[in-house]
């Protein structure tokens, strides 16, 4: 779900860049120095997953996006993490692009942050694996749906004629969102059982002992 290079006119690209800059600035403020390795490692893991994991869907397969998961694990730090990941994707694999980097960061990052507020605490407090699984499904579905809305919005703003792409991709997206939800659910369930510390941001569990 990227906006490809060249598609967005200057106004949309600029708006995206501004919003992204704001979000990334907030994210950088929220991210303590101690959290940089964590944000980077989670970003790398998700980057690798979105590149190489192919979830079978009918005769074809889809790549996971995992921005809901990123949000739940990283909070606001997901914004800079996605900026970095999307830049690398554009550079190494030509997904997205540099003029659309802002829009794509917004499209991926803001839904992630929303998921942080909506689900992170609940997952932390969930007792049973099943509950964590369902919250994970909800996070995956919510994030990807929001991303779809933002993506569709920026595409239509870029040119009314482009709305046809949105229309055509509506149905496939429903399937993709479902699979993303299930996949995220299993990951969150796994983490809740094996390593519940994953959902505690380091600055929540331990601040630097000496101020």
């Amino acid at each position, binding site marked *: 779900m990227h906006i490809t290079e060249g598609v967005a006119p200057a106004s949309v690209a600029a708006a995206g860049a501004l919003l992204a800059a704001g979000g990334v600035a907030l994210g950088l403020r929220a991210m303590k120095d101690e959290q940089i390795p964590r944000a980077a490692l989670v970003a790398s893991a998700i980057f690798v997953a979105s590149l190489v994991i192919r979830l079978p869907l009918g005769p074809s397969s889809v790549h996971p996006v995992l921005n809901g998961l990123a949000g739940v694990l990283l909070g606001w730090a997901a914004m800079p993490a996605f900026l970095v990941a999307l830049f690398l994707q554009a550079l190494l694999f030509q997904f997205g692009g540099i003029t659309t980097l802002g829009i794509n960061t917004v499209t991926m990052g803001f839904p992630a942050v929303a998921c942080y507020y909506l689900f992170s605490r609940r997952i932390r407090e969930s007792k049973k694996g099943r509950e964590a699984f369902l919250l994970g499904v909800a996070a995956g579905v919510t994030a990807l749906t929001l991303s779809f809305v933002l993506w569709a919005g920026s595409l239509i703003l870029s040119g009314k004629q482009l709305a046809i792409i949105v229309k055509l991709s509506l149905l496939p997206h429903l399937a993709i969102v479902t699979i993303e939800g299930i996949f995220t659910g299993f990951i969150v*369930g796994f983490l809740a*059982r*094996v*390593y519940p510390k994953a959902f505690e941001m380091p600055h929540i569990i331990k601040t630097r002992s000496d101020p």
Partner: protein
Amino acid sequence: MNEKGNLLDIQGVSFRHTAQQPVLEDVNLTIRHGERVGLVGAIGSGKTTLLHMIVGLLKPNQGQVEILGQTRSSERDFWEVRERVGLLFQDPDDQLFCPTVQEDIAFGPLNQGKNREQTERAVRNALSLVGMEGYEDRITHHLSGGEKRLVSLATVLAMEPDVLLLDEPENGLDPVSHERIRSLLLSLPQAMIVVSHNVEFLASVTTRCLRVEDGKLKEIVV
């Protein structure tokens, strides 16, 4: 199990990971049913590579691989191989990826198409074989090194393989777990290839020994 013919017959196999120097070069290896073969060799000599090639995780650049009486080359050919040949990985951390011990051991049998009840039985059997009853609900990630190694072996045994490929099964273990693995291997009926840096250990669990050196295999006496 087809008791006639060879278990494994590798002819003129070469393998290189990248553009570099080949790891294995024109290797021949024949293993008959019921044999227990030890494999030694320096670090990076290609022992792990050889085992991975046997189950089709790596494909040779050249040569022919015949396993369980059939020539294997495509990914699909190896599906049957992987159901009948159990590979224990060098690093148990690579082998255990499910949350609990139970789920991890059940993974193989489920892939083989066993039903719930058969799978449960397989899990119980495998755990009792390695002497780890009662570990069903433990989180794999929290196990100690030795426990991980034994559970990994259980995940392999649960698939009831006809052949075992064991990559340094006793590596990094303290003496107690070491002895446990040794007696377990002696008690197992399967044919096996065992990789190890520990020659005494190999001498006690295998019937013959090979050394990987400069991309070749040589019969040695231990």
